[in-house]
Each structure stands twice: as structure tokens, then as C-alpha cells.
């Protein structure tokens, strides 16, 4: 039987058909939700139609597949979660997106259980970078960043424990926001490390990022970490631009020596913002080490029963890290939590003199898929745990950070810069991101694969 579509349903169906075609090359989607979308459009009241004045009317979005979507299994990038029942309800942030007029069109691939910076996944295949299909998309919100970069969705939701929004945003060349820890409720999402898990949006412009962020905010009792804070109207504040903002670059640990692509990105952004000050934060290596251990222990604790009973069903790259985490002494964990507080106190003191701090988002542009190691300060290091070298210290203490995309001229690949503010000041990060976009220093580009697809 042929289904008859309304004009609005027909438009969306065409979009989904095109998406299916293009995503064959990228592998960003794990599920495309045709039926749900068509039902929602059919049931929508006139005020909810695409031309309504809802703040996100006409926005398409996808969610990392650790978000609960009613009647879907919350895979979290794993084979193991296929045994879970379908979700009974949508995650809180999906409900807020749809209440604001946005249309959920699919679930997006990710690194297994979010323990990943690469976008590689042995169960579902790698998520390819739309700007070079042979390269990593970054992770663990790989599908979220790649789908936004390829224009398959207007915005996406992801999660970020140590850099999992910011690293793929950097490698795929999109805007990404990791809000303050405790800002957005995580209710209805599959956890990784409760002390460090954040949710946030990825988008094709700073304006879209702000609009979505404004609709996502608000207290929810379902997440004990969620704080009851006044809602920011960050989109309204974008026209304020750089007015009265004191901006500095982070040095020391965040120095870009040995990373020419990150150095060029930082220089471009610092020139655009006329940044002369460099601040040298104390205790960053220790703060990052604390985040590393907290993540390793909490993630392993979450999965301990499965590590004991079915370790062979994990992705080998995550399994070996979880197994190590299951063996770490409890004293290391307690000391790591204390160190995190100590580091936070040092970092917060920097915001008495500056409103915004700048840092690289990734050490380099997207590596080739399959690469396992790189040189960090002259020493060979594993790629998977260290791609978040510049992001991990920032999320360790919950600071808000927006990644803006810049472009490396020799390779023509994207690389991001982090715009970091004090807790609860996402509005300032977004103002700077919008100013950089307006001045032409931060922007998205259409992916190369479109050219070959249309030939």
C-alpha cells in the first residue's frame, strides 16, 4: 500500500531519502526515523507546523545513540546494549528540542560506550570524516559531528566526558558546545562517567548553537548533577560581540609547540580577537591526570558485570581500557577527585582577570583511520587516549567551552579552537564564537565528497 504524504511530509521524506544516499559514504546514522517523523507531522497541531514561530521550527536534528529515543534500543555504540529493551520514553533534551519545533530524524553512530576520541567502531564500522573519507571523524560523538558537517542534519546532540563533542567538532569542522557541568540534564541517556558526563549541541553556525542551547536549558530533577540555574538567553546576546570582554590565550600545558596545525589555528583566532595576553595555568597536567583516572574507574565500575561475563563482546579498543580501569586502586580515585578540586580552584582564579580563555581543541587535523600512535612533546603516545589532550583538562572541572572551526590551509582540513569561560557563562563563549564567524575567521565548508557524489 502506498502512503500518501502531506506536502510537509513529502519534503521531509525527500530529505531522508537524500540523507540515506549520502550517509552510505559517511556512516553517521545508526537509525533513520522515517515512521516516527511522519507520525509526528501527521499528529502536529497547526501551531506546530514548520512555518510556526517556534524557536527551532524547521530544524532537523539527530542524537548520538546514547540518548533514549522511544521505541529504539539505546545502543551507546555497543553490541552489548542490543540486549536491552527499547526505550520507554525520549530523553529530556529530545523532548525539549521537539517542544521547540525541531524534528528528530535519526540516531547517530558513536564510539563504544563513549570511550573514544577517534570515531572508529568495530561493531558498526567507522564513521568517516566528510572532508576526507579516509580520515577519522573524531569521537565519541562521531556521527553527531559528521552528520552536521555533511549537512545531513542542521544540528545534533552529543555527549562530552573528556572532549567527545569538542574533538569531533574540531576534526569535522563544525561548531560545538560543551556547557558547564550540571547545566543540562542528562536524564534518559546512557552514562559513561557520572562525575564528568556533559551533554551539548553541535551546529553549522554559532547562531544555531546558541538558539539550540537556549531551548535545552532548564532544571530537571531526573539528573542529580543538574543545577537549578537562571536560564541564559544567549542568542539575544550574540550582537554584543566582543564588547567589554577580556580575552587571553592559555599557555604552558596548552602550548602548541610541535603541533603546527593547532598553532596556526590559534594564531588566526588570536589575531582576529587581538589577543596579546598569555596566561600560564597551574596544575593542568595533574587536572588532566585526575580526569583520566576518574573516567577509567567510573566507566569500568559501570561495566564491571559485563567485563566479568562477556568481555569478548566489547570493542577491543575500549575493552582493554575498561579492563585496566577495573583494576585501579581506590586510593587513586579518591586522590583524583581531590586533585580535580585543587585544579579547579587554580583555574577559577584566572577568571578574576579574564572573561575568556583560548586553547586548541585538538593537537592536529583529522588523522588517517587506523593510526594508533602520535608524537606528544617528542614522546610516542597512543592516539585513542590522547586526542583529547587539550580538551580533557577543561571538562575535568566542568568549564563551558565552544569549539569554532578554522581551516588548515596546506591540508584543507578543519581544526578547531576552544573558547572557554567561567562556569555558567556559555553566553560569553557563544558571543566570541559568533564574532569570529561574523569576521570570517570561523566557518563551515561543504564537504569534498559532495563533488564526487554528484559526478
Amino acid at each position, binding site marked *: 500500500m502506498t502512503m500518501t504524504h502531506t506536502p510537509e511530509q513529502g519534503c521531509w521524506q525527500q530529505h531522508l531519502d537524500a540523507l540515506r544516499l549520502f550517509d552510505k559514504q559517511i556512516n553517521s546514522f545508526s537509525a533513520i526515523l522515517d515512521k516516527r517523523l511522519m507520525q509526528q507531522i501527521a499528529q502536529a497541531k497547526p501551531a506546530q507546523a514548520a512555518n510556526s514561530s517556534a524557536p527551532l521550527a524547521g530544524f532537523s536534528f539527530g542524537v548520538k545513540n546514547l540518548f533514549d529515543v522511544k521505541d529504539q534500543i539505546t545502543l551507546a555504540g555497543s553490541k552489548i546494549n542490543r540486549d536491552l529493551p527499547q526505550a520507554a520514553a525520549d530523553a529530556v533534551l529530545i523532548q525539549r528540542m521537539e517542544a521547540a519545533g525541531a524534528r528528530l530524524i535519526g540516531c547517530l553512530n558513536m564510539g563504544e560506550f563513549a570511550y573514544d576520541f577517534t570515531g572508529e567502531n568495530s561493531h558498526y564500522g567507522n564513521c568517516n570524516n566528510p572532508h576526507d573519507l579516509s580520515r577519522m571523524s573524531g569521537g565519541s560523538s562521531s556521527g553527531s559531528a559528521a552528520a552536521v558537517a555533511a549537512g545531513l542534519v542542521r544540528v545534533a546532540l552529543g555527549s562530552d566526558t573528556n572532549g567527545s563533542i569538542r574533538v569531533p567538532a574540531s576534526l569535522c569542522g563544525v561548531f560545538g558546545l560543551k556547557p558547564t557541568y550540571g547545566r543540562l540534564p542528562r536524564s534518559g541517556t546512557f552514562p559513561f562517567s557520572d562525575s564528568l558526563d556533559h551533554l551539548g549541541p553541535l551546529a553549522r553556525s554559532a547562531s544555531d548553537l546558541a538558539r539550540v542551547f537556549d531551548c535545552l536549558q532548564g532544571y530537571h530533577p531526573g539528573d542529580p548533577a543538574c543545577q537549578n540555574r537562571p536560564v541564559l538567553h544567549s542568542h539575544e546576546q550574540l550582537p554584543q560581540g566582543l564588547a567589554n570582554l577580556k580575552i587571553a590565550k592559555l599557555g604552558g600545558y596548552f602550548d602548541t609547540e610541535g603541533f603546527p596545525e593547532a598553532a596556526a589555528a590559534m594564531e588566526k583566532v588570536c589575531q582576529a580577537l587581538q589577543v596579546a595576553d598569555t596566561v600560564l595555568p597551574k596544575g593542568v597536567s595533574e587536572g588532566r591526570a585526575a580526569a583520566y583516572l576518574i573516567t577509567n574507574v567510573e566507566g569500568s565500575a559501570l561495566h564491571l558485570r559485563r567485563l566479568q561475563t562477556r568481555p569478548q563482546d566489547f570493542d577491543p579498543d575500549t575493552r582493554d581500557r575498561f579492563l585496566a580501569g577495573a583494576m585501579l586502586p581506590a586510593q587513586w580515585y579518591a586522590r583524583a577527585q581531590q586533585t580535580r578540586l585543587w585544579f579547579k580552584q587554580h583555574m577559577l582564579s584566572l*577568571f578574576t582577570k579574564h572573561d575568556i580563555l583560548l586553547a586548541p581543541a585538538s593537537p592536529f587535523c583529522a588523522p588517517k583511520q587506523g593510526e594508533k600512535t602520535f608524537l606528544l612533546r617528542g614522546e610516542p603516545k597512543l592516539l585513542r587516549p590522547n586526542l583529547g589532550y587539550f580538551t580533557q583538562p577543561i571538562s575535568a572541572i566542568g568549564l563551558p567551552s565552544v569549539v569554532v572551526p578554522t581551516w588548515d590551509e596546506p591540508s584543507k582540513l578543519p581544526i578547531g579552537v576552544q573558547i572557554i569561560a567561567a562556569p555558567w557563562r556559555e553566553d560569553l563563549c557563544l558571543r566570541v564564537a559568533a564574532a569570529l564567524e561574523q569576521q570570517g575567521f570561523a566557518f563551515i565548508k561543504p564537504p569534498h565528497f559532495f563533488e564526487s557524489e554528484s559526478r
Partner: protein
Amino acid sequence: MTKKFDAESHFTAMQNTMDLTIDAAWKPMVLQHLSIAAEMAQLINNTPLPENELALANTFFAGEAKRANRDDT
């Protein structure tokens, strides 16, 4: 942690304690990740934390900053 960390002996002890069955082929990578964690533990062991204080309850909140939050008041 002050003594040199021996990933191999730690692995042997903890594998049984935690009831983990680890395939021999996986062991080298698990040992490597244990060694990385030990390096991280060494770093945090050197932080000058106050003695006789844990303050773990404070570690879960994002905190405030004077200047940047001035508009909130």
C-alpha cells in the same frame, strides 16, 4: 603511590580479585593501559593537597568565578 608500579604483578593480583577472565592476547594492551594509569597516578600523587581534608563532596560542582559571574548578582 610512591613505589615503582609493576603492571604485571598488579594485573595478576587484581585479575583474580575482580573476577576478570582476560584472554592472553588482550593482556599486553591491558598492561599498557595500567602503566598509563600509573603514570597519571604518579602525577596526582605529587599535587600539594591539604592534609586531614578530603572535601570530596565539593568536587562535583562547577563552582563560581567572581568577575565572570558579576552579572548574576
